[in-house]
């Protein structure tokens, strides 16, 4: 059975969207840089568990998330710090702080593992949100694949901004040469580059769901889209505002 077979969907789904979702689903169960295939699929499951987690819902209402303690409604296969991080990214990302990440490091969740986890959570979330937006059932999670993690770290890293190391502006060279062209990028593109595949994954999904990097400067009508740039940015802005995202 093929993943993301949209033939039975009530609306025609663009082929590039189906392909982007399918490609990510093929990568998800394979060993990553810092998590095994089984752990990566478990992280994906926590992305789905978070919206109905009673602890997360209680924390969301609290003045401070630390004011509410308890156990997450979660599956198995991940350390508690990873479960908590996955749930917070989905449910309360605006209150994630440098101290929270440093405390997780002290508890054994490295910044490298955290960044890969962020990448998995948000990739799965965005695919699931596309389905939820259209009233489609969620795709079943893939079966984990065995193998060794790579422990890959980019050669050039900087701690000039944000809570985690990132590839610097001039760092898109060597193995990272494909990340962005000519030293021109934005903080949100650099954000997950401690694990370069995390950027590659979201960039591929974004090219289908939103716009490819090389089309970002086109403020007119993209011939591959049914909505124009103002319509696109209205949606983007409203979603960002509801999520209280300053960036």
């Amino acid at each position, binding site marked *: 059975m093929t993943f993301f077979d949209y033939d039975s969907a009530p609306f025609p789904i663009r082929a590039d969207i189906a392909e982007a979702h399918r490609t990510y689903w093929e990568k998800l169960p394979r060993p990553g840089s810092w998590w095994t295939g089984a752990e990566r699929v478990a992280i994906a499951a926590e992305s789905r568990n978070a919206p109905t987690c009673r602890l997360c819902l209680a924390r969301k209402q609290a003045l401070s998330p630390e004011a509410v303690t308890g156990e997450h409604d979660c599956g198995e296969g991940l350390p508690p710090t990873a479960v908590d991080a996955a749930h917070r990214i989905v449910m309360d990302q605006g209150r994630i702080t440098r101290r929270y990440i440093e405390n997780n490091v002290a508890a054994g969740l490295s910044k490298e593992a955290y960044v890969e986890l962020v990448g998995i959570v948000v990739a799965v979330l*965005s695919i699931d949100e596309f389905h939820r937006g259209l009233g489609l059932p969620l795709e079943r999670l893939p079966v984990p694949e065995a193998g060794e993690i790579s422990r890959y770290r980019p050669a050039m890293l900087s701690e000039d901004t944000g809570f985690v190391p990132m590839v610097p502006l001039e760092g898109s060279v060597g193995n990272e040469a494909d990340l962005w062209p000519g030293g021109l990028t934005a903080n949100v593109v650099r954000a997950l580059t401690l694990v370069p595949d995390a950027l590659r994954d979201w960039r591929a999904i974004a090219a289908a769901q939103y716009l490819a990097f090389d089309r970002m400067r086109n403020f007119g009508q993209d011939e591959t889209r049914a909505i*124009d740039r103002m319509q696109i940015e209205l949606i983007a802005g409203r979603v960002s505002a509801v999520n209280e995202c300053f960036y």
Partner: protein
Amino acid sequence: MLRVSAMQNATEIDLQAINGDADGAAVGIEFGRELMRFAESVASRDEALDQHRQALLEAAGPAVLVDAAGVAANFQRMVRIADSVGIPVDNMSNELGQQVRAELGIERFPSAGNSVAA
């Protein structure tokens, strides 16, 4: 980006659409009201999603609905990338950006601290 795209297209818009003003969303943007309400329902996970999906479908058709769902889903991801690793706004001194942030009043958001304190 909404302000920039409106300027590039020489179109008057009302930025308060970003804050949920349905009448504002209709200014200069085709199906703006329906698109804004659909995006809001996706992001807030509210019970009106089915209603707002149907309203957008009836007003604009399935191709617009599918593209809108893609963009909403994409930004459900992007906001979480930005806030999860605490990145600041790239250029806080940009005049247009300052105007937009002031107009929207978004410095009240907790994640503003990642940029204001940077």
